[in-house]
């Protein structure tokens, strides 16, 4: 039991627990808060894996921007709760069985068929630092980077168009 493993198990438990919390909360606001906890935990995993820049982005973009947007919409619509419904009651157990099946399959693959995965022991200097990520991004991935900027612009316009009220009604 190395300290590393202990840390991993501890964080993994938090991650799974917060995921399940998000899943089973009646109130959407709680779900959102559980998800934020989950994202922060994952950001810590990123740090452990040598992705400093990504970890910071994760906290800033996901836990910060995106989840705030979720909370904002939940508050705006006032639809934080939904009444109990009987539709598709039979789907729930089937879905749980399938999810367990999926996990079992993945673990089977990981531990019985891909167990020879050995990590690189010596990482390059400054692996995952903002400088190296920036270098790679602007050297090798310049075009996709620019395309994502267009994607964001399109998404922005789309969001505005979708939520705009028709002026002709008033």
């Amino acid at each position, binding site marked *: 039991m190395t300290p590393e493993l202990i840390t991993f198990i501890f964080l993994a438990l938090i991650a799974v627990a917060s995921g399940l919390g998000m899943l089973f909360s009646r109130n959407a606001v709680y779900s959102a808060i559980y998800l934020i906890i989950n994202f922060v935990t994952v950001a810590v995993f990123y740090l452990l894996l040598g992705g400093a820049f990504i970890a910071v982005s994760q906290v800033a973009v996901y836990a910060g921007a995106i989840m705030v947007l979720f909370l904002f919409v939940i508050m705006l619509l006032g639809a934080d709760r939904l009444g109990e419904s009987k*539709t598709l009651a039979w789907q729930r157990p089937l879905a749980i069985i399938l999810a367990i099946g999926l996990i079992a399959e993945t673990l089977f693959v990981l*531990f019985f068929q891909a167990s020879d995965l050995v990590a690189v022991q010596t990482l390059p200097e400054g692996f995952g630092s903002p400088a190296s990520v920036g270098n790679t991004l602007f050297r090798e991935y310049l075009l996709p980077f620019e395309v994502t900027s267009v994607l964001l612009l399109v998404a922005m316009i789309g969001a505005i168009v979708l939520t705009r009220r028709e002026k002709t009604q008033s």
Partner: protein
Amino acid sequence: MLPVTYYVGLSAVLFAIGALGVLIRRNAIIIFMSIELMLNAANLAFVAFAREYGALSGQIFVFFVMTVAAAEVAVGLALIVAIFRTKQSIDVDQMSSLKG
């Protein structure tokens, strides 16, 4: 350094939880959050493999996934707002006009 399989296994568990959320919840916003969780699970796997091979491309990919997720959330939430305006509800089960 832990074997990368641990991280990938965790990623699979989180993914399954996200998928389960999509399948069993009726609240459109929570379904959306579950989708975000699934994306995160995938990102975790990416970063784990990037560490495994000592290649930065995996992290760059996560960066792009985050961008796409941000765009997706912006449009998706706008859609939910628009649906709520017409249906006064965000229960996906009420949107079943495609029933055969």
